[in-house]
């Protein structure tokens, strides 16, 4: 399974329709593909290229720029341990070493059962709650060795806290439905004279002044 399922393809086409330039939907469709498969497969990038009318090389060029698009299969849970300054000062290096030992993989690797991918990441903007980590981009804060062990056990067994974390790639548990009128931008690019938000957010005109 790598190309979009029929349901997802229909959704992808609706997403493309929201943009005046189809290519603008590249990143949303990459997210959709990653949600479907847990990672962005080559076939999926080809399918995205077909849907937005560009070449697969352009989709790969865009997707490979972003850390959060995984171009190779990852575990059900992506465990990102921050090792930037605040977290490191509060023991992140030890946490990472402990996680590597407990999981039996180095940072960047995936456990043999395909459950957990361990990553050593830069600042995740949770310095006040250091040391922090993320499971599938959901925060776990003020982690200590015992909490890490418990978290890993839960993720491995799929119980306890594991239920808080949807599989890797899931964008949101609540789906927002956009109405047909709520398009990204309805003015064709050739006709735009200024960004649309200028008009939308126009300051109230001072009627009385001349």
């Amino acid at each position, binding site marked *: 399974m790598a190309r979009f399922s029929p349901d997802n393809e229909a959704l992808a086409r609706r997403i493309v329709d929201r943009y005046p330039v189809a290519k603008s939907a590249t990143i949303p469709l990459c997210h959709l593909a990653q949600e479907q498969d847990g990672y962005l497969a*080559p076939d999926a*990038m*080809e399918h995205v290229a077909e849907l937005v009318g*560009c*070449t*697969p*090389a*352009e*989709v*790969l*060029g865009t997707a*490979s*720029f*972003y850390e959060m698009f995984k171009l190779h299969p990852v575990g059900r849970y992506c465990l990102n341990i921050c090792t930037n300054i605040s977290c490191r000062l509060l023991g992140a290096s030890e946490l990472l070493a402990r996680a590597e030992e407990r999981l039996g993989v180095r940072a960047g690797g995936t456990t043999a059962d395909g459950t957990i991918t361990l990553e050593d990441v830069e600042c995740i903007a949770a310095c006040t709650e250091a040391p922090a980590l993320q499971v599938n981009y959901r925060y776990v804060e003020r982690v200590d060795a015992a909490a890490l062990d418990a978290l890993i056990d839960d993720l491995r067994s799929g119980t306890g806290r594991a239920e808080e974390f949807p599989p890797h790639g899931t964008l949101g548990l609540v789906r927002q439905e956009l109405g047909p009128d709520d398009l990204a931008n309805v003015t064709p690019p050739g006709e735009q004279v200024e960004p649309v938000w200028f008009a939308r957010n126009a300051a109230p005109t001072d009627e009385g002044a001349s």
Partner: protein
Amino acid sequence: MSERPRPIEVTDPVTITVDGRPIEVQRGELLIDACERNDAYIPRFCYHPRMEPVGMCRMCLVEVDTGRGPALQPSCMIPTAPDMVVETASERVTKAQDGVLEFLLANHPLDCPVCDKGGECPLQDQTMAYGPGESRWVEEKRHYEKPIEISPLVLLDRERCILCDRCTRFASEVTDDPLIHFINRGSNTEVNTFPGDPFSSYFSGNTVQICPVGALTATPYRFRARPWDLERTESTCTTCSVGCRVTLESSRDRMLRINGVDSDPVNWSWLCDAGRFSFEATNSEDRLTEPLRRNPDGSFSGIRWSEALTVVADALRGSDPQRVAVLGGSRLTDESAYAWAALAKGVVGTDHVDAQLGDGLPAAVFDLPGATIDDVCRPGGTVLYLGPDPKEELPVLFLRLKHAAQRDGVRILEVTPTATSLTPYAVAGVRPRPGELAAVASVLAGGDVPAEGVAGVPAAELEGVLDALGAADGPVSVVIGRPNLAESAQVVLDAAASLSALPGVRFLPVVRRGNARGAVTAGLAPGRLPGGARLGSDDHWSSTWSTVPTAAGHDALGILAAAAAGEISTLVLLGADPLSDVGDRALVDRALERVDTIVALDAFPTASVRRADLVLPVAVAGEVDGTTTNLEGRVSRVRAKVTPPGTARADWVVAVELARRLGAEWTARTVEALRDELVAGAPQLAGTSWAQVDAADDGVVVDLTGRGFDPGPTAPVPQIDSYSLRLVLSRELYDGGELLARSESLAGLSRTPTVGISVGDAERLGVSDGTALIVRGERGSLTLPARVSSGIPRGTAHLVHRLEGSDPISLLSADEVACDVRVELA
């Protein structure tokens, strides 16, 4: 760098100060160009004058002061403005250049001694000229798998890449083939393709030429020579009729490389890969190297030139002039074509002469008022496109038209039998049924739109094109050519006749073979004299030549029909291969059977050469001096760079030698003399004497004023047979032609033949892509896989000429205006 700034006309001058010197520049032009034009060259890697600037490499930083104090700014991104003060070599600039080069070299390997670019490398040269001189880098450099094949023609050594965005910009901006892209981020960024999707652009070789380092190399040149061993000469490419300016580069008398030269009116430095790499055929083992005579048992044996020429002279002398015919010549230089025209018409006295093989355009199209490529691409103009798929036949013309449509507001209206590569850039288009183009043309020229439509085109679609034509600001340019080899050339003439009624209209006739226009202009066309005048309308040649034909002779198809009827005893083939190219295989076969003496001048043993009685080896492009005329009528120099193999010689030498043996008093013995003799007798060619053409880098355009266009008798409208599909036979760039088949790197690139049908017909037949179909014509049948395409109108079958494994011309018949075929499940 070899690129030159684009020539511009200064219409709005402003004065800026560069290095303390006031200079006058065009307001808004890029600072980097303005400085270069005024002898203040600024080093650069990413900037290319034919592409949008990106400010990527930072090498062109200069100090610019616009009143707020000097600041370092990338000169490729700064438009000139009044009173700018620019320092290009101050201490701060030098320091910035040092720094930029140090960063670029941090990750760049120092493998110059084994790098193909070494010796002509902008990174190497500019490091020497502007760099810090010494490296502080002691760490290990990056290593990548090398080289990787990003296409069959282009190899990539990623560790050498400096990420200037030239190749990727070229691919997306110039050709719209964005098959290479920056992948990954930061210091891991690399240029690459999508896995399994190679950079198979027709223009991929240009990326090698514009790469400022040795990251991209072309397989035909990689490790073949060092730049300082190459000898170069500027010439014109004659692979197709666009006439791109090139440099021919050779080492030890072997052609090794061709690069594009920036000719503003023509190719803007770009070349297609067929033009760039088909020189490999020059070095082919298959070249004919000595004259050959057919033995009674059918084998060939080598003979001496003097003996061969005597045999040919005897054959010419012994025949009634009306029984002599000359076919081909559109690959020759102007001078060779003229020499052969003068020999055939002025010495032998036959007018059965045709440079084209029924697949080009009759000489009459050159009587229409002409347009140059620049005229057609003039900003804001309107173009009616009635030609073949330009990307397949005239690739660089495609780049020019695409650029015009995308960036210069030129509106292209397409009137072609199937969709072409131009379709995405056209504002409107209709698909007339083959054979009925003239009806559509007469509507476009001002006729009424019948409610039921014309030639299979619905009235609404025609209205769309008419509206666009009506909105045209100024005169319309018409590009006419042969989009369909299965349709008679007369159909195109009839359409041109209708369209010539449009006010101020000008025509760009597009023919594919390199010098077809030059050959016709030099007199290799029935009913024409050198210079293009009609027989009998001119007395220069009748007073110069010992004999002049009195009545117009046959064209190619007529010559073959006459030969098949036993009316031709000596047939000369000038690089022509009628068996492979004429749209009537049976007719050619009968003709070659019945002619007493077939003399073939060719470089390769083609199918027709194998049927000849006498074979004379000739020199090809890169081995002969002379001039060539491109599709616009632009005469430019072709130059010899290497010597022909064996005893092969230029075609004009053979003609002059034969004339001498036939007792003609004809004294021209050099190409210069031949050119000047031709120009002296042809007012239309005024200004194109040898000296004038030799001095003009961009060539000289002949007089394009129209003169009495006569389309001749109108072609009958073919009947529609509702059980058949009408055939469209077109060409692709990589076909099985002689040059490509003998170019090692290009030979494997042609596509697998298919039969293209419309979505509607596919549904009716119940077939999808790949289903085997039988295409049955009156003359024969082919079995090919189906290709279902929305670009093909219903009722049409699309085949491609001369691909390995398919022989569509075997279906054609010379006397049909259009060809109908039955398509059935195999």
